[in-house]
Every structure is written in structure tokens, then in C-alpha cells.
């Protein structure tokens, strides 16, 4: 229904004029790049974390699981604030990052990626953890009797078996990152060209030119739907027929 309203109220006539603006393309490209980078980062950190959650019995596992899923229930703005306190120039970690490596995250494109990863990674972790739990451990044992080391087992047996969930989790993660607003604006600010992603551009436009806001929303919607549809067709179906 809300989507329908968006379509009905869209300024179809002025669309081309509103979208010809270079800033829109810049924001769109930044959104796609950051969402993709955040998904990559989530895969890198999230898959090992999911493995630890699903397969190990280290003490404090319950706490770790709670922490991992926390961003799902936390208002993104609070998440952004927490990131700022941790990675900000005077944050507990950010201070050292700045002093030792000269790296500053807040109010940079890298900051956008970190904020999006923070908010979106739990979607990937939860999906992959569930898949890792339901993988047939018998197959992993069989692989071990065929001379596969634990790492090889994971690479050649476990990962291929959870591929559908891995893809589904990545798509969820990417979609969540693409729409991320609260943590991004809090942690990375709203600077056109470096940190202004599409959701932030929509928010900006809403205050100055509501017509443009609707047009931008439509673009975001179209791109998201197109990408999700393409992925579902090509990858998810391929994964399902293993």
C-alpha cells in the first residue's frame, strides 16, 4: 500500500528533470558501492562468527549470540552513536586508530561501510548460523575419512552445502545495508559525494523539495527490486537445485 501511494503521487512529468541532477547518480552509486562493500565485510567477519556460534562451545557463547543479534533490535541511531563512541576521533578505539595508523572512520565513506556492516551483518550471521547447524555432520565426517583437513572440509563440503543460505543471507544483508539510514547519518554524517547515500538524499530532499524526495525513493525502490529479482532468479534458484 505505501509503495502504491509512492507510485500514485510520483511527479512523473518532472521525473527526468529531477533525476538529471548529477547528485542523484552520485548518491545512487555511493549507495550501491557501500552496500556491496558492507556485504563483503559482513561475509568476511560474519561467516567465521556464525561458525563459532554454531559449532563451538566456548564459554560466553550465549552472551556473544546476544551481542551479535543486538543490532537487530537496537534503533540504528543508537548503533551509530555507539560506533561514534568506539571509533570516533576520541572514541576508545578510534583514538588509537588515529594515533597509530592515521585512520579516521567517522564522516568518511569507510565510516558509511562500517555503519552499514554494523546494522546489516546480523542478518547474514543469523541465516548462516542456522544453515551451519542443519548441515549434515555425517558428510563432514565422511570428508575427514577421505583425508580432508578441517579447513578443507569447511571449504569443500560445508560451504557448498550452505551455499543457498549463504546467498540468501548475503542478499538480506545487502538489502538492509542499502536502506540503512540511522546509523549512517549518526556515524558518517550526510556529506554529498562521500557519505550521502540514497536514503540520506531522500531525507534531505524531503525538507527542501518533496517532489524530488518521491522521485529519489522510486529510483531506490526500482534498483533494489531489480537487483533482488535478478539475484533470486540466477543464484538462489541455482542454489536450491544443488
Amino acid at each position: 500500500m505505501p509503495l502504491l501511494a509512492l507510485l500514485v503521487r510520483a511527479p512523473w512529468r518532472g521525473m527526468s528533470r529531477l533525476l538529471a541532477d548529477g547528485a542523484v547518480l552520485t548518491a545512487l552509486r555511493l549507495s550501491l558501492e557501500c552496500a556491496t562493500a558492507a556485504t563483503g565485510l559482513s561475509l568476511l567477519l560474519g561467516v567465521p562468527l556464525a561458525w563459532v556460534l554454531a559449532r563451538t562451545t566456548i564459554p560466553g557463547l550465549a552472551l556473544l549470540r546476544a551481542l551479535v543479534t543486538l543490532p537487530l533490535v537496537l534503533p540504528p541511531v543508537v548503533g551509530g552513536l555507539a560506533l561514534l563512541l568506539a571509533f570516533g576521533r576520541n572514541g576508545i578505539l578510534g583514538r588509537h586508530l588515529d594515533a597509530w595508523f592515521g585512520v579516521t572512520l567517522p564522516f568518511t565513506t569507510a565510516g558509511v561501510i562500517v555503519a552499514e556492516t554494523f546494522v546489516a551483518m546480523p542478518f547474514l550471521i543469523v541465516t548462516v548460523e542456522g544453515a551451519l547447524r542443519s548441515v549434515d555432520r555425517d558428510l563432514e565426517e565422511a570428508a575427514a575419512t577421505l583425508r580432508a583437513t578441517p579447513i578443507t572440509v569447511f571449504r569443500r563440503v560445508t560451504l557448498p552445502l550452505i551455499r543457498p543460505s549463504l546467498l540468501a543471507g548475503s542478499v538480506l544483508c545487502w538489502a538492509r545495508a542499502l536502506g540503512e539510514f540511522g546509523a549512517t547519518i549518526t556515524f558518517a554524517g550526510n556529506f554529498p559525494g562521500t557519505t550521502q547515500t540514497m536514503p540520506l538524499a531522500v531525507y534531505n530532499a524531503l525538507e527542501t523539495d518533496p517532489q524530488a524526495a518521491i522521485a529519489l525513493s522510486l529510483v531506490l525502490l526500482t534498483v533494489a527490486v531489480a537487483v533482488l529479482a535478478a539475484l533470486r532468479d540466477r543464484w538462489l534458484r541455482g542454489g536450491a537445485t544443488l
Partner: protein
Amino acid sequence: MNRAGRDEPDLYDVAPAAADAGLTIRGAVERGAFRLDVDLAVAPGEVLGVLGPNGAGKTTLLRALAGLTALNDGTITLGGHRLDDAAKGVTLPPEQRPVGVVFQNYRLFPHLDVRDNVAFAARCAGAGQRAARGRADRWLDRLGLAELADRRPGQLSGGQAQRVALARALAAEPRLLLLDEPLAALDARTKLEVRAELRRHLTDFPGPTLLITHDPLEAMVMTDRLLVLENGRIVQQGTPGDVARRPATQYIARLVGLNLYRGTAADGGAVHLSGGGTLHTAPGTTLGGAAGTGDDNAAAVLLAIRPTAIALHTSRPEHSSPRNVWTGAVAGLELLTDRVRVQVDGTIPALVDVTPAAVTELDLTAGARIWLSAKATDIDIYPDPRQP
């Protein structure tokens, strides 16, 4: 690819004097209240059948040999190399053991086609994809599976999956082969076909083989030697023929369809059964060499009677040429292909095979009182091989 060169450093060397290609396991695995305690050896080229009821520890034994479960006690030695030494805390992980396993449900990788399943071990050992697939193709050829190479496990019949699982295990060039109920998941017709073929491949395999089963026929046909496992302990060992003819436990007796009684031998061929009653065997029956196993008491013996060797009568038989006559109550009837197996309860319970005509003639209904007789010469008497 030089296999010896690849595997040697992984294995733990024992004194060279002990070096031979056989397998010995002398040890125990504890799982909660259950304890598997075995001491056995398998020679190279020998197929040892492990027969036992569910929960006897058969699978635990296989897992210990494959390195999937650690020994709590004792050692496992294969070809002169220690795989496990509980006292020293040594347990080689499964991937470092030259042990091939054919699992009960085959455990083929669903995401790989047949060729890549068989090539899996070579890939893990570092072979390139082309080389590994070439080797896999040779194994598939050898087992007559070449036309299945491009199929996924989901597209295979049970018999085909069984053969692929064997090819996959053999392609890893193991020195010990373990098979966990390899035919259990197959239907009767496929079983017959695969059994003969599997037997042939097992004969070709140069190392020791352990075949776990609870199917007596499978055990009889496919193994050189049989070991009966019950409650985590070895209760009998011998050739399949000996085990079938002279079972040591009720479990085996039931599997091979014999009446088995435990008792103590007295004078003149009389045996007092531990369940009550006395049966007479032919006097002068020798008890093999094992009668004097150190027991000061009367010798513990087992009596086996074929169900066809017992006769049923409605009244006490008059001309009593059979020396054993007793009575019981009919507890059940079961139709075998051309006979009826009658279950008789009483002091000396028995399974008796009669013709279907005899069932009506004798008016065998549940609870009916019946007389049984058996000739002394039809009773096989032998020492109880179980350690007290």
C-alpha cells in the same frame, strides 16, 4: 604420486619388529555407561565380519578405527604404525589415517557429481583437478561405474550409490577398509546382485577389511572370519560356518535358526540345563579339547538342536526310541515358505519346524499342550566358548 612418501611422515612408528600390514586393536571406548572392550587382529587381505545386535558397539568400533572416536584405553596398530595410543594421548585425526570407510548411508557429497565424489580424496591430497578426475575415472572404470560419472548422488539408485561409495573409499588408497552395514539400505534383489560384486572387490583389496553387519547371510557369504559382538564384548570368534553351526549366544542362535541351551554336563551324556530340565546327548560325545579349560566344576556346555530335529506329539510318544521327551505349550506359529515354525514354551522352550499338514493334524492352537521329542544323536554338544 608416491603414496608411501606422502603418508609415512603422518604415521607414528612402532618397533620395526611389529611391522606387518595387519591391524590390531586392543583397547576400550567408553560412552556413558556403555563400554566397548575389544582385542582383535585382522590379517592383510582378510575380511573380518563383525556381527552383533543393535547397540552392541559395532559402530563404535568402526568409529574408533576411523579416528572419529578416541580410545579411552589401549592401542590401535595398522601396518606397524600406531594410530592410537591412549596411554600416550596419541590419536591420529581421521584425515591422517590410511583408513577408508564405506558408511551405512554412503554419505556421498550431494553437491558433487560421482566423478568429483571419487576424486575428492585425491583433491584433498593436493592433486590438481585434472589429475584427480583422471584417477577417479580409472576407479570408476574398474568398478564398472563409468557411465555414472556425471550424475549427482540424488540421481543414483541404492545399489549404484553403494558402489560409488566403495569407489570413493578405495580411490583414497587406504590400507584398512571399513564397511558399516554396506547392504542394509538395499532392497532384497539389489542386495543379491551387489553382494557378489562387493565380495569380489573385497577379495581384491590387499589390506585388512572389517565388515560390520547384522545380517547373518551377509556375514556368511562375504567374510573369512566372524566375530560376534554383544554388549561391547567379543562373545565368539570363528569361521562363519563354525559360528552358524555352534552359536555361543541366543542372539546368534536365533539368527541362524537353532535352539540353543546352556547347561552343565553330567555322566553318561546327560546335561542339566541352566533353565531347568535335563537333555540326554549321545554318550561318548567328546567335547573337543576345551572341556578341561580349568573349570573344576562340571564342564559348561552348549547344546544346539535344529528345529527340524524335534518332533511334536499330541500325547506322550509310546515307542520311545528318542531319548528326550518333554512337554510344553504352543506359544506361536509362523509360516516359513514350506514349513511352519512352532514356538513352544515350557521348562525347555523350543522352536520346532513342522509341515503345514502337521499343524492341522496335531491341532496346534495357541496354548495347546504338546509333547516334544528329540533324538540324542541330533543334539550337538560343545563347550561354552564364553569366558566366565
